[in-house]
């Protein structure tokens, strides 16, 4: 923000510092351990009165001198140069905070140079005791340099009390100071052994070579145990969230952790093998290999240490994008571009969106990401996104995956950055969603003769739409299965709800009776459900036609009808119709009607997970989308779902994530499916209106389903008025999970703030599919609402849900007259003007609730004079 950013493109992503640092750290540790190696080896030569050992020590010193001075010293300065170029703000902070520590280190560095020169150039000519003293002084100054640098490096990872006090000593003697010092000291000794292998393996005389190589083996093998113990001490001295970041959260660290685990035994084995007598070329080759293994080992450690600091460059103080943690709220308010010094576009307009996005990219992304480079390449990471998905990703970074800083800018800046990445880096067009062309059909309303017909048959689907997940080759959480309810009413002055001596059947439109030809569910039921389910049969055994059973609910029911939105002729139709017929026991038709069984595969996962629609460019999960969802789950939750799916073993999400309500499934210890999905995605889709809901649920204004099609939509209500904003919705679910002792909810809640109420304390916990908005919250006593907002007031139980409730006499379901949830009469269906009002049109030739406008005679055969079913029912429909 303060400084210009060097555009590195492919060389970005930390490549430069990695190259410079790994070499320097390896050699500088050699400079310390090797110093002790020199003086102790010299002492060994003197004690054993061995000129051969002394000659070897002198030659090793020459090698040591050149390597440590030419490469060690200069790459040390190189690290300084590099960090100042890549993150000048952090470098400046380190310099200004620890200037006198650096200065002290400079004194030790100077003395190191003087002492090693004297040691080398007086070798064999100075009194042995004095010469060893010079050697000891070299080692001591080298180790003191480590002592100082270790304090500063440790500060970057664990600044400890410095965050509060700003005190030099608090920062220097930080929580990992001592364990890191021991860790690095033992590592330095091991590296001395590795470099010792290199020079000792070149000794020509075999027995002496073997003796010295074995001597070097001890340098590797003796410290390694202490090194591992101090490594454990080091790791456990870091804050819990740093440990979590290293071990659990950062996917990029996995290969380095694995490397560290594998290379440790390799080094031990190598050290043991080197002690075996072998020909010189093999010995030399092994020495070189072990030296390379050593640098890989060191590199793995340095990557892990750097990774543990994420998303900070100076832990808990300055993010890796150079913005101070304490400045974040201000930057978010005023905007990155306003706060940054090195930008041209201070304001975003429609003309400069891409250019402003580029500047934001430079400031916020480039510090860590390369473009097409070896490390942290942003191109594959962002390839799947369109503008919306990229925007959502930017909203969520730093919230769930906390190894990246949260997005620092405001909404416009986030959009501009998303536009830049999508358009400029990936060459995608920025057009918003193109409206899907929907052909509206003319539906024939079933006949009804009010004068002669003896029965009224009312039917409805229990949900406004069944969200079908047709990604069954990979996973599933909503297999095919719509629930259809029907009530048969015998007309009369006192009508009667018929419950017996009739046969009520259902038959889904013919074109929809072969769903197994269109979705892979039936190929995967063994894996998904642990049992075989016959083709074109639902989980309850119901098919696409059948007999409805009269249940305790007080209605004829066909549960789990496996309808899909794919007709045999091709295409996508989310509103198939089902014909319901009631016959007497002799088979004579008593009544017949039709109703839609809404089912949609237009779930917007692809908006963020990439991939196209599977069917006709308008709905369905493509393999790419489905696989990416699993890959993301695997990355974040350390699962192997994608591998399982690709080996033919897809999973049902509820096998781990509990679903609640009467169809409860799943594992009690994990978050419920609804809480997990909403809680996770709310972090990515926060600060939005109902577009957050419609991004996933099939109600996009340009989409192919438009599932919210009832009267509430017509008068301008959205999901938000009843369910709250996505953050509210998610928090209410997550709070319930917390109450149930599922602590994982806390992680998802941490970055969510409620919007409909003041604080999280004010959010009423709720179980999904049980505690839902109650119509009577707004329609108090069935009257027109005075306030249209009902978030936080939930039904007490499933019995209180709209789809399960009945009118006052407890005979007729609310939905029988008002229609399915989210499709309350008069509903408008884009696939046909009458499609969602077939029964109101059939019985009263009006699209309004059945019996409205005082159409009591539909059932009562005569006009009535007062409310009966509920207050305010004996009136004229007011939202015409």
């Amino acid at each position, binding site marked *: 923000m*303060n*400084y*210009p*950013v*060097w*555009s590195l493109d492919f060389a970005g992503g930390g490549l430069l510092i990695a190259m*410079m640092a790994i070499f320097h750290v390896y050699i500088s540790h050699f400079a310390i351990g090797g110093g002790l190696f020199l003086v102790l080896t010299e002492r060994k030569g003197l004690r054993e009165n061995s000129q051969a050992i002394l000659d070897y020590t002198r030659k090793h010193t*020459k090698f040591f001198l*050149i390597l440590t*001075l*030419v490469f060690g*010293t*200069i*790459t040390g*300065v*190189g690290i*300084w*140069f*590099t960090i*100042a*170029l890549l993150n*000048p*703000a952090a*470098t*400046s*902070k380190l*310099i*200004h*905070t*620890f*200037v*006198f520590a*650096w*200065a*002290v280190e*400079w*004194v*030790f*560095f*100077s*003395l190191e*140079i*003087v*002492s090693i*020169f*004297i040691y*080398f*150039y*007086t070798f064999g*000519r100075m009194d042995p005791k*004095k010469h060893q*003293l*010079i050697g000891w*002084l070299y080692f001591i100054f080298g180790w003191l340099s480590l002592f100082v640098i270790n304090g500063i490096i440790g500060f970057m990872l664990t600044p400890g009390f410095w965050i509060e006090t*700003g*005190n*030099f000593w608090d920062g220097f003697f930080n929580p990992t100071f001592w364990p890191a010092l021991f860790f690095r000291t033992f590592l330095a000794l091991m590296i001395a052994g590795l470099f010792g292998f290199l020079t000792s393996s070149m000794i020509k005389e075999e027995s002496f070579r073997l003796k010295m190589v074995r001597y070097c083996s001890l340098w590797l093998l003796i410290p390694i145990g202490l090194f591992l113990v101090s490594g454990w001490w080091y790791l456990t001295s870091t804050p819990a969230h740093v440990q979590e970041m290293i071990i659990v959260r950062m996917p990029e660290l996995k290969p380095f952790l694995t490397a560290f685990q594998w290379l440790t035994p390799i080094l031990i084995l190598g050290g043991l093998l080197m002690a075996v007598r072998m020909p010189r070329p093999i010995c030399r080759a092994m020495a070189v290999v072990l030296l390379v293994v050593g640098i890989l080992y060191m590199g793995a450690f340095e990557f892990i240490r750097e990774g543990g600091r994420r998303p900070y460059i100076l832990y808990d103080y300055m993010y890796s994008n150079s913005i101070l943690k304490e400045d974040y709220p201000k930057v978010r308010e005023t905007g990155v571009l306003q706060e940054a*010094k*090195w930008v*041209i576009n201070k304001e975003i307009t429609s003309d400069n969106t891409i250019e402003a996005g580029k500047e934001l990219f430079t400031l916020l992304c480039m510090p860590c990401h390369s473009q097409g480079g070896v490390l942290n390449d942003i191109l594959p990471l962002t390839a799947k996104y369109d503008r919306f998905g990229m925007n959502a990703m930017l909203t969520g970074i730093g919230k769930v995956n906390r190894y990246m800083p949260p997005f620092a800018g405001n909404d416009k800046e986030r959009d501009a950055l998303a536009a830049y990445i999508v358009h400029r880096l990936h060459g995608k067009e920025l057009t918003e969603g193109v409206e899907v062309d929907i052909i509206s059909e003319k539906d024939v309303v079933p006949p009804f003769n009010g004068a002669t017909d003896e029965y009224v048959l009312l039917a409805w689907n229990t949900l406004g739409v069944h969200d079908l997940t047709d990604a069954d080759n990979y996973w599933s959480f909503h297999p095919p299965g719509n629930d259809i309810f029907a009530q048969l009413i015998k007309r009369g002055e006192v009508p009667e709800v018929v419950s017996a001596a009739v046969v009520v059947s259902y038959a889904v439109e013919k074109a929809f009776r072969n769903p197994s030809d269109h979705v892979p569910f039936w190929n995967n039921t063994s894996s998904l459900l642990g049992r075989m389910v016959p083709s074109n049969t639902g989980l309850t055994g119901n098919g696409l036609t059948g007999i409805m059973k009269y249940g305790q609910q007080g209605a004829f029911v066909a549960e789990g009808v496996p309808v899909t939105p794919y007709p045999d002729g091709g295409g996508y139709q989310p509103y198939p119709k089902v014909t319901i017929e009631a016959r007497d026991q002799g088979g004579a038709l008593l009544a017949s009607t039709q109703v839609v069984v809404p089912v949609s595969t237009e779930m917007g996962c692809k908006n963020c997970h990439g991939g196209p629609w599977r069917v006709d460019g308008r709905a369905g999960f493509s393999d790419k989308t489905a696989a990416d969802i699993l890959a993301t789950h695997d990355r974040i939750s350390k699962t192997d779902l994608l591998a399982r799916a690709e080996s033919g073993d897809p999973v049902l999400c509820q096998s781990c994530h509990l679903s609640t309500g009467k169809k409860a499934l799943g594992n009690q210890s994990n978050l419920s499916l609804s809480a997990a999905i909403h809680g996770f995605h709310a972090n990515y889709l926060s600060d939005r209106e109902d577009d957050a809901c419609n991004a996933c649920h099939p109600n996009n204004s340009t989409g192919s389903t438009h599932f919210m099609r009832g009267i509430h939509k017509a008068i301008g209500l959205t999901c938000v008025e009843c369910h709250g904003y996505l953050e509210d919705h998610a928090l209410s679910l997550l709070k319930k999970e917390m109450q149930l002792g599922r602590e994982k909810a806390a992680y998802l809640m941490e970055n969510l703030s409620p919007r409909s109420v003041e604080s999280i304390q004010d959010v009423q916990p709720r179980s999904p599919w049980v505690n839902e908005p109650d119509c009577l919250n707004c329609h108090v006593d069935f009257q027109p609402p005075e306030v249209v907002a009902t978030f936080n007031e939930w039904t007490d139980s499933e019995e209180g849900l709209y789809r399960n409730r009945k009118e006052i006499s407890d005979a007729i379901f609310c939905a029988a007259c008002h229609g399915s949830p989210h499709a309350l009469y008069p509903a408008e269906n884009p696939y046909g003007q009458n499609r969602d009002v077939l029964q109101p049109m059939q019985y009263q030739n009006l699209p309004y609730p059945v019996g409205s406008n005082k159409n009591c005679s539909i059932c009562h055969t005569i006009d009535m004079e007062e409310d009966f079913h509920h207050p305010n029912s004996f009136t004229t429909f007011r939202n015409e």
Partner: protein
Amino acid sequence: MTPADLIPVADTIPVHWLWFQVLLTVTFFFHMVAMNVMAGTAVIALVTHIRGGDASLPLCRDLAKKIPFFIAFTVNFGVAPLLFVQVLYGHFMYTSSVLMASFWLSVIILLIIAYGCTYLYDFKFDELFGSRALILSIAVTLFFVIAFLFTNNFSLMQVPETWSRYFNNSQGTMLNLGDPTLIPRYLHMMISAVAVGGLAIALYYDFIQRRGREIPDGRIQLGCQWFSAATCLNFVIGFLFLDSLPDAVKDVSTASGLFFVISLIGGIVSGGFSIVLGFVYKVRQTAIAAFCALVFMVLVREAVRITYLKPYFNVTELQVVPQYSPLLLFLVVFAAGIAVFCYMLKLAFQVGEVKS
């Protein structure tokens, strides 16, 4: 957007700025001396090779053993002023470094190659034969390239009014080539190196001679001649450099201008004396005069920087968040380090002349 808008906010400092100014000036002086000796002796050795003849080899062999030392100390003495200049002027220097980042980082690679060449030149002197001049010329060329990049950076940091070029080039390939002071400044610095390199040769052989050992004929004179001749040339370059500086730098009505002029006069006078003394082979007197000239020139350099940055920044503006205990630690360690340094040198000299 004004140049001032681009200048980053400075960090706070733990002690009064004067501490850092003194440490910067003193350590920079030693860095300059070490760098001058390093580059200057390397140039003289190279010219001696080019002039040819077997007679030149002993001098070159002697210099070959010393040049890696001087690189080590040039780097070592460079670390300290680089540290202190970042404390006082980091927000300028980091910026200019980023603007020329590709070149600036290449310094490390170039230095490793140059350093490696000098060790090759030293340890393989006898085996190299005809390649000696080639190897040394690579090192010398790289020294000069590195110096040019340093001159670019430390002049670029002084001219925020040119920084907006970044918006057309963020690849880190900006240099300060449009600055009229750049070339004279660079040449002034590098010709000074040749002069001090000559003086270092004279001083070295004078030291050997005074310890009662024989030295080849003409070495002291050769060194003095290199010094005086180069310094004469540097007077010309120096006046070109002076002419290229903005008038504000030389404005005696300002404190920094007055400081500049006084330091400059001190430098010219002591430099003039050193030339004369060099031509008459008064080695130690020449060294004292040259020492004074270098001190004055380091002060001149500071005065120039202060004036350049005056429209934007003054070190007195740096906010102090006091914490003196680390300074105390440094002073104690520094003093102890000097004592240990002296002790180690004493042990080394007890052995006799340091030989590889």
